[in-house]
């Protein structure tokens, strides 16, 4: 059987601070379950494959985000993948690109790829920067989400989008003042949590993998990892939403 494929989309422009880690975490968590997995990096001149298992988009500055949205606007591969419901993680600029539209600092409003019913505009206040926790609002997640926020935009959810979580403490989340964080729409999970988010939230990583591959075998962290760390990495996600999702849990 061919290996499970995690696609890392345009890391040269959507790769601020550790975003590539999300793809590495997904592939490694499959390997720790005995499932062959690879990360396929889509560079600037590469086509986005249509048939991969999970897609990962990271963050970027304004100019990089503008480049990325224009580059992906005509990508048949990404369109087909999203049409068939491939699980996709989109962080920060990645989230904004997949929305209906976003406005950059100089006031230019740019059409997004229209996969999430959200629109983003620049915030008026200071950037919210710091560690943050949030209670998940999505079926299948029960553990507190942990991340690092560093953004100033305001992302409003439309009727076809649901929030991922509600932040605690002085977290900003989507910046809309209602403590909502991230967005879930179709097969896409969008978040402002860096960290990278899947390294700090193994349950969310396993949720994406389960949606792609169905029930997952138990995870075994290799020897040589301190036991306290290994305990934190162990599978905590249990399939709670779709027993018939076992499309290709091949191991």
């Amino acid at each position: 059987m061919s290996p499970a494929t995690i696609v890392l989309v345009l890391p040269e422009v959507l790769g601020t601070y550790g975003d590539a880690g999300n793809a590495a975490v997904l592939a490694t968590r499959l390997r720790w379950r005995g499932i062959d997995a690879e990360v396929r990096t889509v560079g600037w001149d590469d086509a986005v494959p249509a048939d991969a298992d999970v897609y990962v988009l990271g963050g970027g500055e304004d100019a990089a985000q503008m480049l990325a949205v224009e580059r992906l606007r005509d990508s048949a591969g990404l369109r087909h993948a999203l049409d068939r419901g491939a699980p996709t993680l989109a962080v920060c600029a990645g989230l904004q690109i997949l929305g209906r539209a976003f406005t950059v600092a100089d006031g230019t409003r740019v059409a997004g790829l229209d996969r999430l019913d959200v629109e983003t505009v620049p915030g008026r206040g200071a950037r919210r920067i710091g560690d943050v926790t949030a209670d998940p609002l999505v079926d299948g997640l029960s553990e507190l989400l942990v991340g690092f926020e560093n953004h100033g935009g305001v992302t409003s959810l439309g009727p076809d989008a649901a929030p991922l979580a509600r932040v605690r403490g002085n977290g900003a989340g989507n910046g809309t003042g209602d403590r909502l964080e991230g967005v879930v729409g179709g097969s896409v999970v969008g978040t402002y949590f860096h960290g990278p988010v899947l390294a700090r939230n193994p349950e969310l990583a396993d949720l994406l993998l389960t949606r792609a591959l169905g029930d997952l075998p138990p995870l075994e962290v290799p020897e040589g990892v301190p036991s306290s760390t290994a305990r934190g990495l162990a599978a905590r996600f249990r399939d709670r939403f779709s027993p018939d999702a076992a499309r290709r849990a091949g191991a």
Partner: protein
Amino acid sequence: MLDGRVLARLAAGRTVVLVTGTNGKTTTTSMIARALGGDGQVATNHLGANMPDGITTALLDAPDLTLAVMEVDESYLGQVAAATDPAVIVLLNFSRDQLDRVGEVRTVARRVGDAVAAHPRARVVAFADDVLCAGAGLRSASPLWVSSPSCWTGDAGVCPRCDGPVSHMGLRWACGSCGLERPPGDWALVQQKDRPDGGWSARGPDGVEVPLELALPGHANRLNATFTIAVAAELGVAPAVAAARLRGLEQVGGRYRTVTRPGGTTRLLLAKNPAGWAQVLDLLDEGPGRPVVVAVNSREADGRDVSWLWDVPFERLAGHPVVVTGERASELSVRLAYAGVPHRLADDAVGATRDTVGAVDLVGNYTAFHDAARVLT
């Protein structure tokens, strides 16, 4: 901060060299000061106090010295250059570092470029291989370029001139939209592999070539030395003289220093961002797989965000016995687990080196390094 006019009055009449960039400021400043004559000849901010107040203090402490070499935090270059009217501005490199404190690196590099454009009489010495650095250097009419093999190309995907996509082919790079490309180097770090000392030399204009033979280890320092020889030549110091003066430099503020402890030695290394780690991993690759103690904190001076750990190819530590410590040890441990690097956790960096026999490398980010250096030196 002190009045900019105070700094301007203190700098008046002196030949000022300003050194900025993400990595290597302190070491290169120390090298340039040494190459230009060293203590008693050159005013410099030895302790890494690289904001306007620290530079003012360094000039106050050396009222009679007409040469001044100052490292400048990249966010303050414009302000310091406006006050000191520099003869030379050195741009080492720009990469992601402390996004939560300093801001996004393209913005930092653009402001540095503005400072360069505002000082047309300054000779700008800049790194040609680094896209953002070249973009800032090109704001000068006739920059002097330094070039060398390097391995960090992150933050280099977007053109600093037109925001188009930049592609990389080995060391060369070019923008697909406006055609901006890597300038040819005036000074280059070159190697003749058949020579017993590694054969690293700085090659300059007019066929000048001087062997480096540094006591300081690693590729980053060979590049810092090439910058230094280029700057020294601009200010009238012969390359051979500058190179000879650098050979006695063995440590810079504790960096690269090797200390003896019961049962072995500990070498102190600083790495505080992905590009810095790329250099340290090169350095670790040059020797046998000795034990490495890695300490990571996330205090104000380090940056609160530790997600940069995921931009470091820690997979390359696999051949070394590794100990993880510092205030963010648990996050580093997770990173190493996903990288497939066996390791153990320890409460304290210096204690962890004492538990190790033989030669060990201790790598810390900013406050972790300084805490360990204070105890060990």
